[in-house]
């Protein structure tokens, strides 16, 4: 099949010049050429390979395609971790140290300047270790006894008032409606309601439900609670009961009792029955223990 061979070779553009002449002698050579020429009109609408490649690049995960600068990225990653780490370290360092006690729990803290804080039950104390030497500030909610070493101003801040000292021993009691500062050594300045009051050793400052109560000099060396006792002098009974509930895990029901009557005396923190008796006997109060550590008090 000479003819078919020729056409096939022509299709593959493999004709030699000799064969080309032969091909031209075919009776339908013109027809074939015309067809081949016309076919070119069916050429494709142009294909924009650049924009297609752009689209492919976009849909492919872009991070994979940045592999060239991988070492800079690696470096930046490490740098970021270091920066974040430093940030967290400084932030945690700048946070307040916070100490809380629960019912019947006492604890003590030694501050960075060797000042001593003894913390009574149900109390929150917080302070910042940073720059402690120049800025001795401590926040208090509850009751604590301070033995402050000499140094810069030492502030105890409560929501009711601020106590400022240079170096002494004193006790601060800040409970609902009660704010009491007792100075055992040196002098203490109490700032409360924009008025300053200087306490000397043995003096105390007492604020009951917003009223300043005059008090006598005491001759105690340290607060009674330091020795597991709670001592009260002409204190409304309600405050005694509240303190009682802080020292023992009990609930007192004192609805039947006049809680405004004054109480002078003390109770121990380690013997519930004895403590109950030492409050109730002088005031002629009966007590009855129920389950779930509930105690009902009533007048005799």
């Amino acid at each position: 099949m000479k003819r078919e061979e020729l056409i096939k070779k022509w299709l593959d553009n493999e004709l030699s010049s000799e064969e080309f002449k032969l091909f031209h002698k075919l009776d339908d050579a013109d027809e074939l050429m015309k067809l081949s020429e016309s076919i070119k009109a069916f050429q494709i609408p142009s294909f924009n390979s650049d924009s297609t490649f752009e689209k492919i690049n976009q849909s492919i995960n872009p991070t994979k395609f940045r592999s060239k600068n991988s070492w800079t990225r690696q470096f930046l990653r490490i740098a970021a971790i270091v920066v974040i780490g430093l940030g967290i370290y400084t932030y945690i360092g700048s946070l307040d140290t916070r100490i809380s006690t629960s019912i019947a729990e006492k604890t003590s803290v030694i501050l960075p300047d060797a000042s001593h804080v003894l913390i009574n039950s149900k109390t929150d104390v917080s302070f910042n270790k940073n720059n402690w030497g120049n800025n001795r500030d401590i926040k208090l909610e509850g009751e604590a006894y301070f033995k402050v070493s000499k140094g810069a101003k030492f502030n105890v801040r409560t929501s009711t008032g601020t106590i400022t000292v240079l170096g002494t021993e004193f006790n601060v009691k800040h409970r609902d409606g009660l704010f009491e500062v007792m100075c055992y050594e040196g002098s203490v300045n109490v700032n409360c309601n924009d008025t300053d009051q200087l306490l000397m050793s043995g003096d105390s400052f007492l604020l009951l439900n917003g009223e300043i109560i005059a008090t006598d000099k005491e001759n105690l060396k340290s607060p009674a609670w330091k020795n597991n006792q709670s001592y009260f002098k002409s204190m409304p009974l309600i405050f005694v009961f509240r303190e009682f509930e802080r020292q023992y895990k009990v609930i007192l029901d004192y609805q039947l009792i006049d809680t405004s009557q004054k109480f002078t005396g003390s109770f121990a923190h380690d013997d519930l029955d004895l403590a109950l008796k030492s409050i109730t006997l002088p005031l002629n109060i009966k007590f009855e223990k129920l389950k779930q550590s509930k105690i009902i008090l009533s007048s005799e």
Partner: protein
Amino acid sequence: MTDDLKENICDETLFSAIFKRHSKDLHNFLYYKFGESYSPADQVQDAFVKLWENCGKITPSKAKSFLFTVANNATLNATAHKKVVLKYQKLSHKNYTHETPEFILESDEYMRKLQHALSNLSEIQRTTFLLNRIDGKKHKEIASLLGISQKAVEKRIYSALKKLRKTITEI
């Protein structure tokens, strides 16, 4: 080929070289086979994205057949063999002064016949024939693109030519 020095194609420069080498062939192949309705450029894009996603498993020499298989399969699923009519552009006739209106009319008629004849070809015939005639691909190149023998390509093109001529003269 130097391609196989690398085990896979997960490399930006290699990938872009593969794109440059095969994207146009792939695009034209899809166009000749399925026409314009199935937007060949998008199919090319999808096929290359798939190629990149699987780049770890594919050696450079396998990339081409992967691309053609993926694109072909994706298109097959959707086209359901509808009739492909390719558009033609008006050939820029040189301003022959001797062109009579009859001649122009005649050649328009011829182009319409040719279009009809092309759409009557089988997908395989049309694809090989147009790759050869329009893109000027040698039989050997087409054979390697489609993964068939050179002899088969030759046969297909020849049969396509015969069928075209037959259809044109019949109308």
